[in-house]
């Protein structure tokens, strides 16, 4: 018997609301099937199952909000013993214990911390449907007290938890992209970035890269394609980063009780929302996808990210992050690492610049690339190796 748990879909997630069960008891589940929809701060997420077996019992009702790690359902895999469902690279798994490193560094696993709130404040919050996960406590030990809840209510912000009825209503009009409140995304970004800036000692490297070969190659490639199949430079950049990570695997990792290298290269790609905030869906196994496949994935994933319709694996499994926010006009972007990852690459705008090579000066499209990396996990040498590898791949676009 497998215990299927509420997955952790990001460093900042503490709880999720089970909106809809997509499978019913008795149904057979295959690996990768979507078992449920869960509402989080980052929107409505389709939760995949990573085991095979018959869905035995549903333990959480639709509309219920439960903490990460709560057992949601039992799946019968034909074995008697109950075990916890294995979620690849999920953060709820306890990292292996390394006694020596333990003594050096014990990062908090914030995601499983209970919210401290006074009984009275909880009662008031429930009566007024205030989402306490978004409040900042001012009471003893940082607990949320009555005053904090009342302040949230009086400021009219009250991040409302959806009742079953409201969720029902929303389902009927599910054509409209319905997302979490702007506040909720803002708070999610705030929590993750504060944690990053507080806990991760970043180091920064930057390198200007000649994009003329890559752009020429892409122009040629696009000539033969119908408009629907055309490539964007970002697809090339993602593929080049994936290949560079393959060569420098220490950056494709997390820092949890020491460096934990990841087997798959799943590139988180920062998608800005027009209403403000960001969502970072993962392009899974980017190293083994062709540039065309990456472009297809982008075409699929960006609209879904903006409509808050991502799958759990796309939100929880990225192993490295890319931001190309520079295309809006900034020459350079210096990123903040998304914990517990250990690196983020920032691409500035691709623009024509004077570029010297072999004693000759020419005008070429160039891009300024930055790497922010976790100095606990790697040193500058690893970082510069990565940038060199990335540059090498961008100079050989036909081999991407």
């Amino acid at each position, binding site marked *: 018997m497998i215990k299927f748990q509420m997955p952790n879909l990001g460093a900042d997630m503490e709880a999720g609301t089970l909106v809809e069960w997509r499978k019913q008891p008795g149904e057979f589940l295959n690996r990768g099937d979507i078992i449920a929809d869960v509402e989080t701060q980052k929107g409505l997420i389709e939760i995949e199952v990573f085991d095979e077996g018959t869905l035995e019992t549903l333990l959480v009702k639709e509309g219920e909000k439960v903490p990460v790690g709560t057992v949601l359902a039992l799946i019968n895999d034909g074995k008697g013993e109950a075990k916890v469902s294995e979620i690849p690279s999920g953060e709820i798994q306890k990292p292996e214990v390394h006694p020596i490193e333990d003594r050096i560094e014990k990062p908090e696993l914030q995601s499983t911390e209970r919210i401290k709130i006074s009984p009275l404040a909880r009662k008031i919050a429930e009566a007024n449907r205030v989402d306490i996960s978004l409040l900042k406590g001012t009471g003893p030990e940082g607990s949320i007290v009555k005053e904090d809840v009342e302040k949230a209510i009086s400021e009219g912000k009250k991040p409302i938890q959806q009742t079953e009825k409201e969720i029902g209503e929303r389902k009927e009009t599910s054509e409209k992209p319905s997302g979490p409140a702007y506040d909720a995304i803002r708070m999610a970004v705030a929590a993750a970035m504060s944690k990053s800036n507080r806990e991760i000692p970043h180091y920064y490297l930057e390198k200007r890269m000649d994009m003329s070969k890559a752009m020429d190659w892409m122009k040629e490639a696009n*000539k033969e394609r119908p*408009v629907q199949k055309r490539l964007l430079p970002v697809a090339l950049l993602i593929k080049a980063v994936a290949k560079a990570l393959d060569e420098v695997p220490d950056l494709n990792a997390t820092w949890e009780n020491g460096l934990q290298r990841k087997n798959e290269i799943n590139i988180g790609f920062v998608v800005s929302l*027009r209403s403000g905030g960001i969502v970072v869906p993962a392009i899974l196994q980017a190293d083994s996808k062709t540039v065309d496949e990456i472009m297809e994935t982008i075409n699929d994933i960006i609209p879904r990210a903006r409509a808050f319709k991502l799958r759990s694996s796309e939100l929880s499994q990225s192993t490295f992050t890319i931001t190309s926010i520079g295309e809006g006009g900034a020459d350079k972007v210096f990123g903040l690492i998304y914990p517990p990852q250990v690196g983020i690459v920032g691409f500035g705008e691709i623009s024509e610049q004077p570029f010297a090579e072999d004693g000759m000066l020419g005008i070429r499209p160039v891009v300024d690339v930055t790497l922010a990396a976790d100095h606990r996990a790697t040193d500058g040498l690893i970082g510069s190796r990565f940038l060199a590898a990335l540059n090498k791949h961008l100079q050989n676009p036909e081999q991407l």
Partner: protein
Amino acid sequence: MTEEEIKKTVFQLLQRIAPETDPSRLMPEENIREALNIDSFDALQFIVAISEKLNVEIPEEDYGKTISLKSLLAYLDKKVNG
């Protein structure tokens, strides 16, 4: 298709990409992407949508002619009405 109809279609598609903006307030010479904050992905989506809607072929080397409202409308008019 009249110039006015093309303009209406362009505005509709821009509005879908950037719902909080009002494309009809674009200045003729303004850079559309900069004015409406459209990233490369959405720009490509716009080109795809306009190609499908107006049934025209827009090769990549012509992207330069789609930058401002004025040049875009002139370009599309030529493509549609010859």
